[in-house]
């Protein structure tokens, strides 16, 4: 059985926040705020995060995976463009992601903010095309080697 070259995948995540849509929207529109919840994370260090929040504007992020992940020390870079912005209501953004220098996905994310009794209902629709970079098998080989190293280390203790 051979693997298809592109996997198309869409997922939807919903959240309810006890805050007004304007406040939720501001957390997307302000680069300093967005960095804190969007870019910062347990599994990686943030090397760069910049955002020009307007239709046609770009967002750029560069991370490095930490120890304890399958790819310690490996860089992750995303580039995206804002396709549509309706203040307090909707943000549509599309871009790509590269891990270890190889592009692995292209995605379009739509954020909808709907007023609700308790504040805001947020709907995140993520449509992605996942594929091999030109070095796909190499990167899996790298991941494979690291896994075997981890296994060796664990069996030795």
């Amino acid at each position, binding site marked *: 059985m051979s693997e298809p070259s592109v996997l198309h995948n869409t997922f939807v995540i919903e959240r309810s926040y006890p805050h007004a849509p304007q406040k939720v929207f501001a957390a997307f529109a302000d680069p300093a705020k967005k960095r804190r*919840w969007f870019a910062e994370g*347990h599994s990686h260090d943030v090397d760069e995060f910049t955002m020009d929040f307007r239709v046609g504007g770009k967002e750029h992020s560069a991370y490095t995976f930490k120890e304890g992940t399958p790819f310690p020390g490996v860089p992750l870079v995303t580039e995206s463009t804002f396709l549509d912005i309706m203040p307090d209501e909707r943000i549509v953004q599309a871009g790509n992601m590269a891990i270890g220098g190889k592009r*692995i996905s292209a995605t379009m994310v739509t954020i909808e903010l709907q007023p609700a009794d308790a504040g805001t209902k947020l709907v995140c629709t*993520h449509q992605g095309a996942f594929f091999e970079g030109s070095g796909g098998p190499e990167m899996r080989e790298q991941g494979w080697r690291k896994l*075997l190293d981890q296994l060796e280390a664990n069996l030795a203790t």
Partner: protein
Amino acid sequence: MPQAAVRSANRIDRLFHALGDGTRRSIVETLRRKPHSVSHLAGSLGISLTAVGQHLQILEASKLVLTKKSGRVRECRLNAAGFQTLEDWARAHRTMWEERLDQLGKLLDEE
């Protein structure tokens, strides 16, 4: 422990089970060089066809090895996708967004 790390740990646990056996590791190392038939593997490892079959079942179940029957010969090869499939990448994106939206909730509550 963050969700992404837990998922990585579970995946590694499954692979540890598959690779925690010396014979299975030998099979994987042999297949890294090139594909082999089941009977060739049995011969080079000095074990029965049945024993190889059992090991291959476990390796196939953890997506490390693929086998295909061509006529009377069953050929085995390493599944290059075994470590990280496209589905894993899609899942990882979802996990990232789940965590981001959780963090957004906390940030909004703190403001």
